[in-house]
């Protein structure tokens, strides 16, 4: 009876399945983590700075100090995720040693390898990775990612890129589904994605792992928008703790995510929540400031 199997792909992708329909919030202190948990977040992302502050600070953004990650893990009972730089497998080893529940190999931090991502099959802790299109998502899954999030543009409070990326992934999935089997190998080459995963997408009519939306959600309506567009759940980075009333904003985003198809409830939760973060217009970003173009 006791044929225990750990770190299987079922177990890794399984945790992401449990987070579906929920909101994952960026936090930088144990106090913020508790606010997120009380508001109904399904998980928190432990960080040294939220993306808006990383943008403002400039310089090299690295994995958070283990002390911050540990203090957040001690503060809450929901899963705790943490970010590693793209390709920085030693930061990932450190996060695995801390026993975080999920590692985000994230374009929000400064990439450590401009050619290769982490070989995520080598880890027991599951990984989530960002993607702007289907090919990118499937390449990350081929490397061992057990969860995907569309990238959006982090730290902007502007949902336009999140919308673009989710629409892109979904449009490409529809295209794969409509493509005859004999043409799939060519499509795989075009998308630079493994053929077996392309076949799997056709069979399922969706990605083989959970796909959350990230990078720009700054209001309850933004969250409901991404859910209506087909996201499995929501990552909110700067949108909570850069708003004027994080407690209320957190709670409102959670409720809007649950009731995404009920505009009356989204209206109700959007009252009295203070101001969203100010936000950035995309045309004001210099090419080198676009985080979404990292690690494709």
């Amino acid at each position, binding site marked *: 009876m006791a*044929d225990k199997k750990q770190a299987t792909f079922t177990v890794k992708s399984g945790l992401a399945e*449990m987070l579906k329909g929920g909101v994952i919030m960026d936090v930088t202190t144990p106090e913020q983590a508790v606010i997120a948990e009380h508001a109904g977040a399904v998980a928190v992302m432990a960080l040294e700075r939220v993306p808006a502050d990383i943008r403002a600070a400039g310089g090299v953004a690295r994995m958070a100090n283990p002390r911050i990650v540990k203090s957040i893990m001690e503060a809450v009972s929901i899963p705790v995720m943490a970010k590693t730089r793209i390709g920085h497998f030693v930061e990932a080893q450190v996060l695995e040693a801390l026993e975080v529940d999920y590692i985000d190999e994230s374009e929000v931090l400064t990439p450590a390898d401009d050619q290769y991502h982490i070989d995520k099959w080598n880890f027991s802790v599951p990984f989530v990775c960002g993607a702007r299109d289907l090919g990118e998502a499937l390449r990350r899954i081929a490397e061992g990612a057990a969860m995907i999030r569309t990238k959006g543009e982090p730290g902007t409070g502007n949902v336009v890129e999140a919308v673009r990326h989710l629409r892109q992934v979904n449009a490409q999935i529809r295209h794969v589904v409509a493509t005859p089997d004999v043409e799939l190998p060519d499509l795989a080459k075009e998308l630079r994605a493994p053929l077996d995963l392309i076949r799997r997408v056709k069979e399922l009519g969706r990605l083989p792992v959970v796909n959350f939306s990230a990078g720009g959600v700054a209001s309850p309506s933004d969250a409901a928008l991404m859910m209506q567009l087909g996201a499995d759940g929501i990552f909110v980075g700067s949108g909570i703790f850069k708003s004027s009333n994080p407690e209320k904003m957190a709670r409102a985003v*959670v409720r809007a995510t649950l009731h995404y198809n009920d505009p009356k409830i989204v209206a109700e939760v959007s009252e009295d929540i203070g101001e969203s973060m100010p936000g950035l217009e995309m045309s004001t970003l210099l090419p080198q400031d676009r985080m979404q173009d990292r690690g494709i």
Partner: protein
Amino acid sequence: MRIGVLAIQGDVREHLLHVKKAGADAMEVRQLGDLDSVDGLIIPGGESTTIGMLMQEEGLIDVIRRRIRDEEFPVYGTCAGLILLATEVVGKSPARISVMDMVADRNAYGRQVASFEASLQIDGITGKPFPAVFIRAPQVKSIGPLVKPLAYYRGQIVMAEQGSLLASSFHPEMTDDIRVHQYFLDKVRRR
């Protein structure tokens, strides 16, 4: 027969598919009104704190509890669902239906790195061992006299029933095996 799957958050889609494969109608339950048209309810895995809190806000907790007491409404809780059914929880406790006489310990197997798959012998389910998936799973620390254990993993109770209620620490919806869902459907039918 129609089975509802509580669709606040978590592994809803997979339970809906399993219920259909096992031969019943399946529908999502989000609000109070949805409860009227189902013969039984599955509470899926997810985050128990989040699910409990939002169930409370929707008024679902009181109504489900009343239906269980008054009409032996069948409810099956998996993982987070087990926690929501338990009368007692070790440590921080989410809002709960609190009807099944047992003490549950959240995430008792440890963090995600300790999540695992194992094959189980389950009372009342014949054939090969059942492939069970445990994700940040709770443990049943103790049970009252009305609760009947159905499966153990390394000496620990991981599945149990009490009257119309069924609970498991593991996820039966994450593999293709539908026998646990069939078992629950049989309970609903026998009612």
